[in-house]
Every structure is written in structure tokens, then in C-alpha cells.
């Protein structure tokens, strides 16, 4: 045990009918990100820096639901949120309601490092971005043709559904995530967790949020303790049905059972996924200060990958 470890995710709740070509694309991207993180760790960058730089990479790629390629809100625009936490000292930063900031995770980092606060949102966050001189773009930069199409389908699906949750097993073969058929659901969120060779843990999460969300809707990704958490013992990033993750304070939960029940990382992750989601569907990735890495999810697939210092590397989408 010991040594560095890193895990990344591109969202939980994957369409089982996702074309093979897209699955390959996803795995390539996850691999690229892992390699980027691993190089940085070998160059002795701190966990917090590695987590940020890997999430930036995921934000820049339009494949996953963050930064470019973010899901669209009910008005067809992109509203992004992100959070980052440094296990040493439990410092944190979060942002919501961003529409022109190219890399939300980096703005979250600046909130942590350069502001007296932990969380800034909407026009206040955008002003702070200007003040800090981060790279800004038009909202159009984030919007992909594919997501415009998905939004249209999501709206059609939502008008068919009278309740945002159609229970499974009522004769319907359609799998649902957060009120949408799995085929139009954009797995919410990307994330990265890192433990460096000094045992410092960090976690970072970024997203465009739920497809067709009400404008102003905040999910779990920017909420410390829900979508993101890091402390001395671990770093955690979650993805899936935001509301279920918030209710379950999922990310904090992993740390809490390790701290208060003495569970190891793997046990803690299993426990939390099994017991803290109730009816909800979600997944998470986690690292421990001992150099371990683990992931868990209770839905149909999670884009993920992990690597450790001793040369282990694995990417996957479906059940272990």
C-alpha cells in the first residue's frame, strides 16, 4: 500500500444501447485522462493540482457532460457547476450557474484559493471570473449539436411522462434516470479523485447538470459533502441522480464511515452505494490516503477508469 492513485469518471447511468463506437471513444478519453494524471503524479504534482488538471481535460472534451458538451437546461443554454476539495485542511471551492467560463473547475479552485468564500454562483461567480481574468467564451462554445437534439427528445419524453419517475416493472422496458429515458439522459458529471505520493487526497467534480433542468437548478456536483468530498482519509467524487446524491450526502458518507466506523475504502464505498441511495441511482469513485482506489455504482454503467503507482490501469463502463 502507499504510492499514488487516481480515478476518473465521466458519469453514471449509461445507455445499454450505446453504440460500440461511442463506447470506444469514451474509453480512449478516460485512458488519456488517466495518463495525463499519472504523468503529473510522477512529476510530483500535488493531488489538488492533478485533480484540477484532469477535470479541465474532461471539460475541454465535448464527449462528457461538463464544460464543452454540457447538457442543456430547459432554455437550451448551458449552466455549469463544479467543486473541488483539498483533503489536507479540507479547503474547498465551488461554483454554479456559469455560462461563459471555459473551465468551471478552475474557477472553483480560484474561489477556494483567492476569495474569502467557499461557493459563488450565477452573476456573482461570472463577475469573479472576470476579475480573476480566467478564459471566457460565448455560451455557444459549450453547446453541441448532439445535445440540442437530446434536449428536444428530453422535452418530448417529459411531456409523455406525467410523473418525473416512472417506476420500473410496470411493463415498461425503458430504463429511467432522473426522470428521463436512459437514451436521452446525459450522465451527469465528470470527476477525478487523486491521492499523491505524500498521501494527500483531493476530489474534483464538474457538470452541465440534468438535461432539460429548470434554469437555476443546482445539483449535487457543487455541493460539498454531496457530489464532492475530501479529507485526510479519502477523496470522493459522485455522479448520477443529483437529488439522490444530495439526500444521501454521498461523498461525505464514504469519509464518515471510514472515520467513524473504521471501514476500509472498498468496504466504505460498497456500504454507501448499497445503503445510502434508497431509490436513487448513482455511482462514485474514491481514493484513500493509503493509495487505494475504488468505485461503485448501482445503475446501468458508469464511465470510469483508475490507475495506481504500481502500474495498474483499468477503464470500464459496465458492471465489474
Amino acid at each position, binding site marked *: 500500500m502507499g504510492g499514488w492513485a487516481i480515478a476518473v469518471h465521466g458519469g453514471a447511468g449509461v445507455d445499454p444501447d450505446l453504440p460500440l463506437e461511442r463506447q470506444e471513444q469514451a474509453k480512449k478519453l478516460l485512458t488519456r485522462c488517466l495518463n495525463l494524471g499519472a504523468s503529473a503524479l510522477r512529476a510530483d504534482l500535488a493531488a489538488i493540482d492533478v485533480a484540477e488538471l484532469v477535470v479541465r481535460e474532461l471539460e475541454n472534451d465535448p464527449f462528457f457532460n461538463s464544460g464543452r458538451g454540457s447538457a442543456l437546461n430547459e432554455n437550451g443554454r448551458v449552466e455549469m457547476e463544479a467543486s473541488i476539495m483539498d483533503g489536507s485542511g*479540507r*479547503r*474547498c471551492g*465551488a461554483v*454554479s*450557474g456559469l455560462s461563459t467560463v471555459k473551465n468551471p473547475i478552475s474557477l472553483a479552485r480560484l474561489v477556494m484559493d483567492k*476569495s*474569502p*468564500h*467557499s*461557493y*459563488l*454562483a*450565477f*452573476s*456573482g*461567480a461570472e*463577475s*469573479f471570473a472576470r476579475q480573476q481574468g480566467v478564459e471566457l467564451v460565448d455560451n455557444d462554445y459549450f453547446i453541441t449539436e448532439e445535445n440540442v437534439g437530446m434536449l428536444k427528445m428530453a422535452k418530448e419524453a417529459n411531456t409523455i411522462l406525467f410523473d*418525473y*419517475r416512472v417506476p420500473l416493472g410496470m411493463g415498461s422496458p425503458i430504463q429511467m434516470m*432522473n*426522470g428521463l429515458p436512459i437514451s436521452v439522459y446525459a450522465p451527469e458529471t465528470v470527476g477525478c479523485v487523486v491521492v499523491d505520493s505524500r498521501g494527500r487526497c483531493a476530489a474534483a467534480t464538474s457538470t452541465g447538470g440534468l438535461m432539460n*433542468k*429548470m*434554469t*437555476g*437548478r*443546482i*445539483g449535487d456536483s457543487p*455541493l*460539498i*459533502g*454531496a457530489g464532492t*468530498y475530501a479529507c485526510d482519509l479519502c477523496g470522493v467524487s459522485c455522479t448520477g441522480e*443529483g*437529488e439522490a446524491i*444530495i*439526500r*444521501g*450526502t454521498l461523498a*461525505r*458518507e464514504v469519509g*464518515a*464511515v471510514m472515520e*467513524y*466506523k473504521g471501514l476500509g475504502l472498498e468496504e466504505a464505498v460498497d456500504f454507501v452505494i448499497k445503503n445510502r441511495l*434508497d431509490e436513487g441511482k448513482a455511482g462514485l469513485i474514491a481514493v484513500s490516503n493509503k493509495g487505494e482506489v475504488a468505485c461503485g455504482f448501482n445503475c446501468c454503467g458508469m464511465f470510469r477508469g483508475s490507475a495506481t503507482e504500481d502500474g495498474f490501469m483499468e477503464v470500464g463502463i459496465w458492471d465489474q
Partner: protein
Amino acid sequence: MQILIDPGSREMGWAIALHGGAGDIPLSLPPERRQPREAALRHCLQIGVEALKVNKPPLDVVELVVRELENIPVFNAGKGSVLTSKGTVEMEACIMDGTKRCGAVSGLTTVVNPISLARLVMENTPHIYLAFDGAEAFAREQGVETVDANSFITPENVERLKQAKEANRVQIDYTQPIQKDVKENKPEADGDSQLGTVGCVAVDDLGNLASATSTGGLVNKMVGRIGDTPIIGAGTYANNLCAVSATGKGEAIIRSTAARDVAALMEYKGLSLKEAAAYVVEESTPKGNVGLVAVSATGEVTMPFNTTGMFRACATEDGYWEIGIWPSDVQK
């Protein structure tokens, strides 16, 4: 100070606790600053107790008590909210019940009762948390009472903002007036900066729990700053074991996931409500930063704080009640 009801006993009673903020409330607080707040706490406690006595669900009770606290301008929520660096009001609130249903709002500027809008988010949307323009639009859709943004601003808060700008810092809920070139705060009778987040937790005799918190945030906060209040697990939390509402320095409460940790300690380490809350306040958060009120499913109540004082009140079914500002052994 707390009445502990034997968890083995089948007799559980109702309990309620509420707060008007924790912070550096000077012992020299003049009567004209102290009395209105004590009276307000007494009044709100009474309202909550009456509601519990007629078997109103705890979720309704905490909402109605916090509405009352929001309407009282001496507390930092609703009318009387502290001001952002731009002199505006941005309110946030959160409500949660023991089944873990919850709702939260941030960045409200015209909604008279943020806590009620939080409840509507919980009940009338598939989401948990709405903020800023989206939340304001939802408020209009729902037809809740809204007023001109200026209606929330009080002269006292304009003065507080001015002071904070002069001292060039962001004040936590309660800070004593700052002397510019002196690092240590000395209590002063004037420069009334005694305001804070408001919150209420309640449990009925069946063990149903609820928590509600509401605030204007930090004096001179950056526009768009969100604190701990609307973050589930930080400032507000409830599950089948307990209900918690925290107050103090938002950034510290967020990092320590204060409200969730009280429940987690009970569940994972078997601590009692009192022990769990004391641990969070004494061990998990830096001194001078946090206070909280909490009730358990078995009718216990606790109100610990690591600041100079916390405006608070509580009552339990067997007749115990308490209203206070400073630690009980210090209170005159």
C-alpha cells in the same frame, strides 16, 4: 440542561429548538438590543410549542417558526437580512424532514419568506435546489408573496455594511465592532452587529423530525456567495435519528459538514444527540465559528455553540424550556 428521555421507554415527547444566530455577542449587549431579541425568541418558541401541542407535523412547525423569524427584522433572515458588498439582499433557505425530503433556495431578492419557497421546491418540483433568477421565476410561477427588493433593507444593516467596508472585512453572523488599527476586538456597547442566521428543529411524539434554516448570509459578502444554510448536510439536515440547524461561519460549517456529522456520529459511533452535537461543535470546527440546535427522534434537545453566544430557545413536552444568549453558566 437537556432532558433525556430513555430511548427504551415508549414515551417520547415532542421537542423544539430554535436559534437566531451564533457569534461574538458581547456580554455588554445593551438592554435595548437584547430585549427585543429575547422577546422574539420567546414569541417564536411559543408559536412552535402551540403548533406541536395541536399535533401539527414538525415540517409545518419548523416552516411556520422560521417564517416568523424571517419576518422579524432584528434577525438576519428575510426582512433584516444583512447586505452584500453591493448593498443588496440575497437570501437563502433550506428545509428537510426526517424522510430526507428536502428543498433549498439561494439568491432570492424579492421573496418575503424564503423558507416557504424552499418548501415549494421540495414539494412542487423534481429538484431540490433552485437559485437566483431561476428561483425568482419559480417564485412568481408559484404565486408566493414578493415585495420590492428594498423592503428587506434596514438602516441597521446599511450601517453594518458601512462598518464592514471601513474595516475591509467580511463579518460572520455576529462580530463586535472593529477598531481599525486594533487586532483584538474589544466589546463596545454601540456598533450593533448582533445578527445571525435563523433556524428551527422539531420532533413530534411519533419521532417525526424536521429542520429549517434561513439567512441573508454574511455582511459584505460577495454578490453570489452561497453559505452553509442551503447546503444539505452543512447548515441543515434531518434523517430518522435527528434534525439539525447550524449557524456561524458558513465556510467552516461547509467544510465540516456539521449538520450531517451530528447524525453520522449518532449512527456510526452510537453517540447520544448531546455527545454528537458537542463533538461537532468542540472538535470538528474551529472555535468561534459555529453553533447549532438539534433534536432527536426520542425527544431530546441540545443547543451547543463554540462562539461567545448564540440566540436560542427550546422546549420539550414535559415542560422544560430555555431561552438564552450566552453559555448558561455565564448568563446573567
